[in-house]
């Protein structure tokens, strides 16, 4: 345990920063691929928090949670990219704003 001197709080602070950056990017970027990357950033922020808290609480459960998050992230990327491909096939170079027919 070589993190004995390092408080969990620092990891959490990093996680918060990473999460906020990813969230802001998701809101600002229009390219769906980049938006997915921002989602990946947010997921990684959560992963950092999980692992750090797991280490702090002496629990392998944190790592197990990260394992499941990885799996879900993989599926999400697969489906998301499939959607991007399907949309781009009908309409080349579409951004997230172009897909806005479903409105009230």
């Amino acid at each position, binding site marked *: 345990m070589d993190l004995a001197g390092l408080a969990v709080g620092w990891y959490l602070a990093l996680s918060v920063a990473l999460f906020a950056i990813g969230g802001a990017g998701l809101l600002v970027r*229009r390219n769906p691929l980049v*938006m997915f990357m921002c989602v990946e950033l947010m997921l990684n922020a959560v992963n950092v928090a999980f692992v750090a808290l797991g280490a702090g609480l002496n629990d392998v459960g944190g790592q197990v949670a990260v394992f499941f998050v990885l799996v879900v992230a993989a599926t999400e990327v697969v489906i998301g990219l499939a959607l991007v491909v399907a949309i781009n096939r009908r309409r080349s170079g579409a951004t997230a*704003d172009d*897909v806005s027919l*479903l*409105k*009230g």
Partner: protein
Amino acid sequence: MIEAAWLICAFPLAGFAVLLALGRRLGEPRAGWLATAAMAGSFVTSVAVFFSLMGRDPAERRFVVTLFEWIPAGDFSVDAGLLVDPLSVTMALFVTGVGALIHLYAIGYMHGDGDFSKFFVYLNLFAFSMLVLVLGDSLALTFLGWEGVGVCSYLLISFWFTDEANATAGKKAFITNRVGDWGFMLAMFWAFGALGSVRYLDLFGQAGSLSSTTATAIVILLFVGAAGKSAQLPLHIWLPDAMAGPTPVSALIHAATMVTAGVYLMVRVNPLIAVADAWAPDVIAWVGVATALFAAGAAMAQNDIKKVLAYSTISQLGYMMLAVGTGAYVAAIFHMVTHAFFKALLFLGSGSVIHALDGDQDMRRYGALRAAMPVTAVTFIVGWLAIAGVPPFAGFWSKDEILAYAWDASPALWLVGIVTAVLTAFYMSRLVFMTFYGEARHSSDAHPHEPSRLMTAPLVMLAAAAVVAGGLNLPFTKDLHFMGAWLEPSLFGNEAHLGLGGGAQWLLALVSMAGAAIGIAGAAAVYLQHRLPASRVELPAAARAFYVDEAWTRFVGGPGRRAFEGVAAFDANVVDGAVDGVGRSVRAGGAVLRRVQSGFVRSYALLTAAGAVALLVWFLVRTSF
């Protein structure tokens, strides 16, 4: 055999179903015979149930035959069950018996009518509803029958609906009865609210735990219902108009059976009346006797033969209510039975006369029909003597018993009753004299004739019943008080005890015999010997039934109409406004909120993030402060 009591209802229902499906194909007269057979089957079953009930110990003469669970709703559940006890079986017996005879008569009377089979569809449906009414083991089931007979009454009054007046009469009967139904329903709700059940046996078993105020309210509300159905003041106005229906209908529904439903209901709930405040039965008695006097007065001056009989029916129903109010339940049922016989007889007889004179109902154009139609005349005269209270005919015994109890309760009630009896004898004699005696006043091209055997046979049977029915309940000794002993289990000891000695009873009977004699003699003086012009006794106010109808019209057309319009405006503006307002505000809100659905996925993400921030803030605030 008692378990087969459901057959009593099932026969007319089956008849109704078959006729509804195949009536037109069966045609005349087979449809009529089928309906009559259904009624006869029902009557035979009733007789069988009667005898098996007779075979039991008096204390055990009460059965509930549960058929199926009718309304299961949470704690509230109503089973469709039949309450077989002496009272309901008595009702079933005379409803099916008189009903079968009238069905038979109708085969002849409705001969040649285009809607012959439809008439019997309605008649059988009516019989079924009436039997559900009397045999139902709960207020709810009785109410089902109550509404059923109301519908059939409406359908049959306006049977010849192509005539505007008939359709209007049907509507009038229906709407007037709604007022009564309102009372019935409120009473039912109240009883359920107070005791948690609408089954008669539950109600009666727990009647003692009711506060007298609650019991009084329930009884009065039920009486409102009974007043509507049994044509008591001031809700009687529909019955004279109901004569627009075919005469067998008038005989069956508007004289013998349906209109007695109100009296039956009041007798049925006698344990509740026993718990109610003392003024409740007084109200019933006084409304009854006032109705009796009022209707007898109106009958004095009617020229339409059926109108005379209609007012006479109202008057006799008033007697029955008087009996209920004075606690003379046996006398009420006794009079109901005898009245069913002689009033059905009189109506059917009048039907024969109308039939013979090609539909003319005005007695001023009758006269001297005795020779042309002897059977009708003889049977009619039997009915006349019965209703006029001439011993030993049935009406004398039943009416006298009611009057004896009335004297016991209050001499004032008796006095009004005896005056009514005199008037009854007078107007019935007037009817008989104008129709069967005197000089013939009908037009020369009318050829009065005796109707077919099909129609005279019921007359003869009913006449026989009207002669001997008094034997059901003779006052001389306790052993001869058959009906009193028989109905005992249904009355739970609530029957009033007659405090009169034998001598006083004899005296009262003599007075009422004298009253009948005075009435008949008076009518003979006016209408046979013409010592007095008829216009002196036929008061215009009586001819217009003392302007009750006009008063209703003025009220409903004037302040009533304004009140109802106010209610309607309240409904349209406030109630509908609230409902519409909800819809409108939802639509307006939606029109605003739909802009949020921009279709831009990044806007949604923004809102989601904002929501997450808000949630986090909320959690922070909750944990920190």
